[in-house]
């Protein structure tokens, strides 16, 4: 599954902010890190500010900082600001959808939607930050093992 661009940008941004809630970060800094236009990102950030997830910081440096509760804010809370999980019964109203084949396909698609929803709704930003940390640790450990192997091979 892929998230829409704005949704991914919002998630990247919230993770940046939540990883250090005391830090003010400018739109330009995040835009550069993720290779997107600052103009595009500005819209996403103002949406997050509107929802109270981040707050804008006035004055020198400006930017935004985290204003949410990383232990309670879920991925679904942020995703839901930018895109919608269709509720298949209500949305599937094309003529094909109402045929037995269309209905059966709808059942399968809604199974996938329900699992995705449960997943996004149960992962908080605190849980995500721990996951990121764990991946960094695993990657560092893998690099260390590879380095040890390389040095033992070349005396």
């Amino acid at each position, binding site marked *: 599954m892929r998230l829409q661009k704005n949704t991914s940008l919002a998630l990247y941004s919230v993770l940046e902010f939540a990883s250090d809630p005391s830090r003010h970060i400018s739109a330009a800094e995040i835009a550069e890190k993720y290779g997107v236009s600052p103009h595009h990102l500005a819209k996403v950030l103002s949406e997050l500010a509107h*929802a109270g997830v981040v707050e804008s910081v006035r004055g020198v440096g400006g930017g935004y900082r985290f204003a949410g509760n990383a232990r309670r804010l879920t991925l679904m809370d942020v995703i839901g*600001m*930018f895109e919608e999980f269709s509720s298949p019964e209500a949305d599937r109203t094309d003529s094909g959808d109402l045929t037995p084949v269309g209905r059966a396909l709808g059942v399968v698609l809604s199974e996938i939607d329900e*699992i995705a929803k449960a997943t996004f*709704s149960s992962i908080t930003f605190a849980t995500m930050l721990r996951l990121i940390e764990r991946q960094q640790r695993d990657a560092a450990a893998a690099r260390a093992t590879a380095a040890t192997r390389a040095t033992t091979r070349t005396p």
Partner: protein
Amino acid sequence: MTATRSARPAEGTARKTRELSPQPAAATVAVRPVRLGDLDQIVTLDARVTGLEKRSYWQSLYRRYGAPTQAERQFLVAEAGGRVVGFVIGEVRDWEFGSPPCGWVFAIDVHPEARLAGVGARLLSAICAGFRRAGVRKVRTMLSRDNNLILSFFRSQGMMAGPFIPLEMDLES
């Protein structure tokens, strides 16, 4: 999932993100194997959480899982101030559907008034320590996808979706 939504604030998000209750100080909680004398409190706790009193079910779980001598089966309680404030039950399951033996957690409950103080995390880490002693290196559980509370709890403890998909069907009469 589909359809771009004109970005509008999710209702309740701001409120939700601001209700920051600080983590209560971890109470002095002891985790230990269940005793017969705990059963009444466990039955009451379960009835409060699930809305159903199932005394004989808990008695039979006690008989099966309550013996503290077996490393493969664990029934642990968290005790604070002389009261049972939570419990966890699990066992080592061997080679189910070809998967190597692993620890299964099949029940966990913390008294509603004792929640969010780290009791659930203590119970889970105690049962995981027991599983490690029993020689397994993986722990699993199965949850209702509608129970966001317990899903969030297990995810916060590092659990991710495993490689199995639960399937079911109605049996026609």
